[in-house]
């Protein structure tokens, strides 16, 4: 055909896509990356280092955008980066929010940066408590990949010897603030851990990247790249090899197949011209993010794959897991009333954590199985949110706000759902996106186990607050709705049995040997830890597996 055939087509440039692109390019493979959004220009698109009064709506965003905005990270500072054009639907009784950053780098542009390793307690959870199945690998196998990723991205923390949390190699941790020492003492009394979080934020210069300047504006994007994101850490290395062609505004529609049903390339919509374009490759890596990757694969129907590519197991899109997020307790620390203000917000999220402490000795110690983690936070933030709950007005009101400013604390839960047959995504049979592509339809409900964790967490955090000498004001009413955490996993699970799993233990699909999946969809569930560092480690392993296949000549002839 005279068309160029790339060695690998990578869909997506987030944590998984970025790591795959860098690793494959450095191995000398010719890579074409297709990314659904544009490339951000930090100068124009990141509105960091701006005071609220320099923003038209004081950073609160245009109230007319209320229905459109995802809230939280999608705000006046970052709105240019979020995708609002591609809809999704929900089954009756399902609630789901799904903020998607389709710009180059994806969610790594603004991610929360907490970076704990998964461990054997996660991989072997089924053997321990009898629910579901084990992961098809051991911690010993993935450990060296975590080590390499930590060296690449830089993670600030300490060695903690926690049974649920394998230790790695860390930069100096964030230092504890007043509120951390107070809560740490409270946690000690209650008997739960309070430790420096594992935060991918550079507390010192690292591998050519500058140290953090602690401005506390990470979720509006970083101007110097002092925390890991693919545009700052991975893409420049890939581009230096001259092996990468990056196509932006390229919304992947489906994976093309050859006469044998093997992957032959990707069809995408050029969002600028609205035209469909085909790009050909010997291998395809899908790394569009869990639900989006599954949507693309389900939309890849052909004679060989009538139910979606690599879906002979019928498990593609199934087994959706998510983190339940919510504020399990909120209150204040009277010890700090009237204290001078202090820069408590410098990490913009996670200085400390309360890593999983439940079901460690005995997997059935609690009324629920597995476990959750908690992120405490508080202190002097940019805006005194607590003020609206105070009483009165006038000088006494103004004075009370000033007194209370250093004192607020809150606890955020991160709790995993269990795999179930009723939590999944499929294609909406009727609704299509503006380019005519069937949209994802979500079927999801919090399970009983995770709701028990939520109740448990509310009690423990209230106890911790009291033991810290704090005043409890609110004890978690309802958790956030599903999807909020952006930690969806499980829709292309990895496992040894091709009848039950979409990919093998390396993220290579069982059905289509030249099709790989590199995002959280291959994880069996979401554990109590965040996903990004594990996406990076698993992708590094998958990419090297793919490179090995090239070296052995198995992928030469598509």
């Amino acid at each position, binding site marked *: 055909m005279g068309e160029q055939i790339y060695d690998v087509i990578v869909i997506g440039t987030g944590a998984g896509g970025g790591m795959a692109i860098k690793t494959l390019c450095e191995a000398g493979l010719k890579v074409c990356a297709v990314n659904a959004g544009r490339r951000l220009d930090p100068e124009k698109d990141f509105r960091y*280092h701006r*005071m*609220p*009064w320099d923003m038209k*709506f*004081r*950073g*609160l965003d*245009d*109230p*007319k955008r*209320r229905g459109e905005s995802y809230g939280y990270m999608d705000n006046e500072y970052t709105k240019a980066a979020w995708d609002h054009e591609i809809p999704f639907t929900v089954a009756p009784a399902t609630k789901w929010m799904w903020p998607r950053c389709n710009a180059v780098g994806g969610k790594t542009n603004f991610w929360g940066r907490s970076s704990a390793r998964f461990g054997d307690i996660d991989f072997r959870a089924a053997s321990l408590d009898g629910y579901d199945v084990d992961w098809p690998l051991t911690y010993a196998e993935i450990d060296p990949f975590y080590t390499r990723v930590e060296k690449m991205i830089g993670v600030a923390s300490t060695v903690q010897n926690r049974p649920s949390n394998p230790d790695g190699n860390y930069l100096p941790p*964030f*230092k*504890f*603030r*007043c509120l*951390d*020492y*107070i809560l740490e*003492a409270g946690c000690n009394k209650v008997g739960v851990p309070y430790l420096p979080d594992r935060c991918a934020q550079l*507390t010192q210069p690292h591998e050519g990247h500058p140290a*953090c*300047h*602690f*401005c506390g*504006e990470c979720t509006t994007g970083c101007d110097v790249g002092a925390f890991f994101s693919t545009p700052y850490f991975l893409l420049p290395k890939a581009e230096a090899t001259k092996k990468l062609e990056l196509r932006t505004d390229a919304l992947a529609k489906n994976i093309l197949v050859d006469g044998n049903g093997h992957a032959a390339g990707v069809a995408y919509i050029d969002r600028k011209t609205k035209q469909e374009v085909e790009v050909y490759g010997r291998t395809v890596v899908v790394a569009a993010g869990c639900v989006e990757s599954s949507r693309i694969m389900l939309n890849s129907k052909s004679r060989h794959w009538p139910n979606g590519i690599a879906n002979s197991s019928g498990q593609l899109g199934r087994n959706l897991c998510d983190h339940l997020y919510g504020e399990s307790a909120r209150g204040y*620390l*009277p*010890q*700090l*009333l*009237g*204290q*001078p*203000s*202090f*820069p*408590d*917000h*410098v*990490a913009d999220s996670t*200085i400390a954590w309360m890593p999983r402490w439940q079901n460690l000795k005995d997997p059935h110690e609690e009324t629920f199985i597995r476990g959750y983690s908690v992120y405490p936070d508080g202190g*002097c933030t*940019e*805006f*005194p949110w607590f*003020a*609206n709950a105070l*009483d*009165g*007005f*006038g*000088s006494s*009101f*103004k004075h009370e*706000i*000033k007194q209370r*400013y250093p004192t607020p604390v809150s606890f955020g839960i991160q709790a995993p759902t269990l795999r179930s047959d009723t939590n999944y995504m499929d294609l909406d049979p009727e609704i299509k996106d503006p380019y005519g592509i069937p949209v994802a339809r979500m079927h999801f409900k919090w399970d009983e186990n995770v709701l028990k964790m939520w109740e448990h967490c509310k009690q423990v955090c209230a106890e911790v607050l009291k033991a810290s*000498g704090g005043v409890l004001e609110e004890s978690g009413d309802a958790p956030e709705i599903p999807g909020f955490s952006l930690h969806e996993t499980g829709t292309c699970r990895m496992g040894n049995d091709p009848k039950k799993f979409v990919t093998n233990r390396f993220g290579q699909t069982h059905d289509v040997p030249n099709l790989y999946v590199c995002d959280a969809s291959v994880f069996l569930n979401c554990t109590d830890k965040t996903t990004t560092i594990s996406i990076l480690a698993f992708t590094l392993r998958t990419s090297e597996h793919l490179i090995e296949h090239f070296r052995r000549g198995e992928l030469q002839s598509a």
Partner: protein
Amino acid sequence: MVERLAEMIIPSDETLGAKEAGAAEFIDFMVASDPEVQYPFRMGLAWLNAHSESSAGKKFVDLSGEQQNSLLVPLGFKSKARPGEEDGRKFFALVREYTVTGFYTSEIGFKELDNPALKFYAESPECPHKNDREHKHLSHAKS
């Protein structure tokens, strides 16, 4: 009228208040930008004027500061709430919320709290109370 309410909610006392911070202008701008709150604001202002006329025979802005205060106290303090004034309390809470937002997102509001946002540090700042990690004996702390 919004200007007067904002001034009373966050007054200028030992430190600058809503007036100097231009909180009322911010409220006007946000309400003008937001069709969803225009009706509650209009109805609330009408309620307060009607309430003022019926109890003191004058519009709210024409009352003395003392009279204005005595109308607002039952709306703003939970312990002083009176039956039949639910709409007024709801409106006052709305104005108070907008005033707080306008004031504490202004440069003057940042100074009021000595807001540490957007300063740069060479290393991550640590709690300065080395000898009192539980913070039981802080000098400025109220008991």
